[in-house]
């Protein structure tokens, strides 16, 4: 049996399906009539993605300015390549988050793949660019960096939701994953500007950890919000 034969059988079966009751369609039309007023469409996705990028960059710069630009002052030119990597990933995360908030958007990659790509690329860049095998005060300094990174990520997430508040996430968990990834990358950018600890294991583990932890927190927050408001769906 050829594909065309299957297509024909499917089409016949579809034509045999009963159409919805015309009275139901009248009821639907009547239910939306009272609220059919003009609405302003969302801005183009690139505008929203640029807005998200600006929020991330501005937040990272402001927090680093408050804590001190010790990291970037201690960095050599080659190590500064880390900013190119973080900016590239943040751009993709901003586009992914925007796509998640506009139903039927074209997607480059799913938020889960983007999170995995972000972690893998950060680990690779840190391992190549930061070559100091000491691991002093590994946990205490690491926890301080993780906390500072997450404190930077939180306002990025909140401001981003505000910017995209008119959007509609058909998959809220995916949207949260993209949001958490972008916010986490802003946290990493802040840490690279601020943290002068260039020990390989420190940056590899604790700086990278900001991204998956931020993404996980965002997903949990959305799940919790949905559980608390079941009527919204």
């Amino acid at each position, binding site marked *: *049996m050829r*594909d065309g*034969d*299957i*297509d024909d*059988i*499917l*089409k*016949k*079966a*579809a034509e*045999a*399906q*009963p*159409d*919805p*009751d015309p009275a*139901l*369609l009248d*009821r*639907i*039309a009547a*239910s*939306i*009539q009272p*609220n*059919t*007023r*003009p*609405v*302003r*469409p*969302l801005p*183009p*996705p690139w505008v929203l993605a640029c807005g998200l990028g600006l929020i991330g960059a501005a937040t990272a710069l402001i927090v680093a300015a408050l804590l001190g630009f010790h990291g970037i002052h201690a960095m050599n030119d080659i190590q500064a390549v880390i900013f190119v990597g973080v900016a590239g990933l943040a751009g993709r995360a901003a586009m992914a988050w925007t796509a998640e*908030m*506009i*139903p*039927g*958007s*074209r*997607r480059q990659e*799913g938020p889960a793949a983007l999170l995995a790509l972000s972690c893998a690329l950060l680990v690779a860049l840190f391992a190549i660019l930061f070559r100091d095998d000491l691991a002093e005060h590994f946990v205490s300094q690491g926890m301080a960096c993780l906390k500072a990174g997450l404190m930077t990520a939180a306002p990025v997430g909140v401001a981003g939701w505000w910017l995209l508040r*008119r*959007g*509609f996430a*058909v*998959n809220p968990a*995916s949207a949260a994953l993209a949001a958490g990834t972008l916010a986490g990358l802003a946290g990493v950018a802040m840490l690279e500007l601020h943290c002068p600890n260039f020990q390989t294991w420190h940056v590899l583990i604790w700086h990278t950890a900001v991204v998956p932890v931020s993404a996980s927190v965002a997903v949990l927050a959305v799940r919790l919000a949905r559980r608390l408001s079941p009527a919204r*769906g």
Partner: protein
Amino acid sequence: MHPGGELETLMVRYQQGDFAAATALVRRLSPQLHRFFAVQFVSRTSADDLLQETWLRLHEVRHTYRPGEPVLPWLYAIARHIRVDHYRKSGRTSAREQSLDETPEMPAPRAAPAATLTMEEMLAPLPESQREVVELLKISGMSLEEVARATSSSVGSVKQKAFRAYEKLRERLGQMGGAS
């Protein structure tokens, strides 16, 4: 004007507050949306409810449609969301309910010529994701790119699901042809 272009024009007019355009969209798109819900083994009443709920949600978020973009991926992305939500809620409800000695409403395979099969019977052997792709591609007439957008997946993944679905359908219809 091609059908997609006409839908886009109606959608833009709907966003501008034109009730006639909204009514035209409801009449034009409801049959295929209803079929989309019906092939997922929901009862006719449930399909009616889902259709109504989908239009209310579409109306609520009509500003998220971007003029110039295809209408169907936007529409089906929201319809899928409503359907998934329906499953989630009915799953929650059924978890709280005690089971009865009653069989669920599933189309049982019957020995009939392929041409007389209903849509539900045709697609019964397919997993949900493949059923959805076949429905969107072949019945709703969307392109691979449009189905990928509607289902938040890649074109490659849609192609693969369609290929596997057709392999299963070919096998099933072949068996039926042999039996009849």
